[in-house]
């Protein structure tokens, strides 16, 4: 019994102290920083103030916020549309192929996403691969102007975040009770009907989880608009980055971070709500 108690004590203290020091403490520090005053020499100083939160009234912040909602929201919807049929395919493919097909989804991630985003430039440039191919085939007469537009940013965001939509969707769809579909079939429902009345409602937790895992990171992906959008379309991530790394205005950057955490909280409530409706515990804690 002694060794078991030792193991319990050791692992519980390791886990709690790691989470305390490197997860809880940093979050609290960010909240505190957002309430301090900017200081050129020491990054921050007292007095405490709520003034940093007045950034929500500033034009630059509002612009970044609206852009983020538009670009992040758009990318999320596009990811969902692309990923759903794909995840459905993965969930229904023969068991022995599933492992390799899932691995194929994550292999591109072993090349850093910054490098892959740069590879997209090669394809999307005005004199890039896409335009050259289409021109050579005679399908278009004028090259598309995609590079440095929001279309390029959407492509970049969808490209980087697609697997984060695929995996939660796959996880819910593959666990779905297939006998429900057989029952629906026996009762005379056509495929269309059983999809909209059974598959889709049961996959709502996966949809909400996937959407959160795409939308939230999308708000912060500063390098995608930097590289593909020419830095004109600012995301909240670009705003935070410039406050922290260029303007040395940590309190306002931290306030933006707290603001983003609030958005995260809202999405989490939505997720809770969606899982309660389908009475499953969802994909995060199965």
């Amino acid at each position: 019994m002694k060794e078991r108690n030792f193991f319990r004590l050791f692992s519980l203290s390791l886990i709690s102290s790691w989470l305390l020091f490197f997860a809880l403490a940093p979050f609290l520090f960010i909240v505190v920083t957002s309430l301090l005053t900017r200081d050129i020499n020491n990054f921050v100083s007292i007095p405490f103030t709520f003034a940093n939160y007045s950034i929500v009234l500033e034009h630059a912040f509002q612009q970044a916020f609206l852009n983020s909602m538009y670009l992040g929201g758009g990318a999320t919807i596009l990811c969902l549309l692309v990923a759903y049929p794909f995840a459905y395919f993965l969930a229904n493919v023969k068991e022995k192929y599933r492992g390799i097909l899932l691995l194929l989804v994550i292999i591109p991630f072993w090349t850093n996403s910054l490098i892959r985003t740069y590879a997209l430039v090669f394809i999307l440039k005005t004199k890039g691969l896409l335009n050259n191919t289409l021109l050579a085939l005679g399908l278009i007469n004028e090259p598309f102007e995609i590079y440095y537009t929001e279309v390029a940013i959407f492509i970049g965001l969808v490209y980087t975040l697609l697997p984060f939509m695929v995996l939660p969707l796959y996880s819910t769809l593959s666990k779905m009770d297939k006998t429900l579909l057989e029952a629906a079939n026996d009762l005379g429902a056509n495929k269309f009907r059983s999809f909209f009345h059974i598959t889709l409602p049961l996959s709502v937790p996966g949809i909400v989880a996937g959407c959160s895992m795409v939308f939230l990171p999308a708000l912060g992906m500063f390098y995608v608009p930097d590289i593909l959008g020419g830095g004109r379309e600012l995301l909240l991530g670009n705003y935070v980055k410039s406050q922290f790394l260029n303007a040395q205005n940590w309190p306002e950057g931290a306030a933006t971070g707290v603001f983003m955490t609030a958005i995260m909280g809202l999405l989490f409530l939505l997720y809770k709500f969606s899982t309660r409706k389908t009475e499953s515990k969802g994909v995060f804690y199965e």
Partner: protein
Amino acid sequence: MSNIFQKIWAIGVYIFLYLPLVVLILFSFNISKFAVSWKGFTWKWYEKLLSNTGLIDAAINTLVIAFLSATAAVILGTLTALCLQQYRFRGKQVVKSLLFVVMIAPDIVLAISFVVLFIFLGISQGFIALLIAHITFCFPFVAVTVLSRLDGFNKYILDAANDLGASSWQTFRYVVFPMIKPAVFAGWLLSFTLSMDDVIISSFVTGPGYEVLPLKVFSMVKLGVSPEVNALSAIMVVVTIVIVFTAQLLLKEKR
């Protein structure tokens, strides 16, 4: 959704995911530096890469961090999963919530949190900071993966092992570990992938003292990235695939 449509759609998605990689590798063999058109085959970017120590160091650092943080994250994450499944303890809900928050918090929020923490603790930008940050954002994913596997198995097996006189270590070694091995491996792979792919957290917590690939490449983007980066990426893709598949084969043979 019909079968044919699904298959075509899936192939389309794979093409979308792999096209940039293929382009990257293809153009590592292109003679011309900037042109997108094909000017002929060459090895010269690979030769140039050999003398570009800065770039090679950054690549090695990236791999070292990914390997170390994935390994540490697997240990920490597996312990977390075991504790959450086997013990009742005060603050269990807090642990669960923190894991969840770390998993879904935007990288940029984690990044600035680490910056403030490391300044406060006096840890300077570099290896240690990067390692701590990567372990922290990876291990909750391992914990969840292992936990979902643990939930699936019968608790009485543990009692049986105990009744038959197995020590805790023996129970872990011969009963629990074989069962969670696939999840542990999947968790390692996921952590390794997340670490290799990370741009945002790395660009905040490390600096010129310990350069990793995304930082190095980001500083080149404005001037035009040289095809040496393509060559390097090609090598890294091949090396990683070989490592992961060898590991999987070795694990399979032992079974």
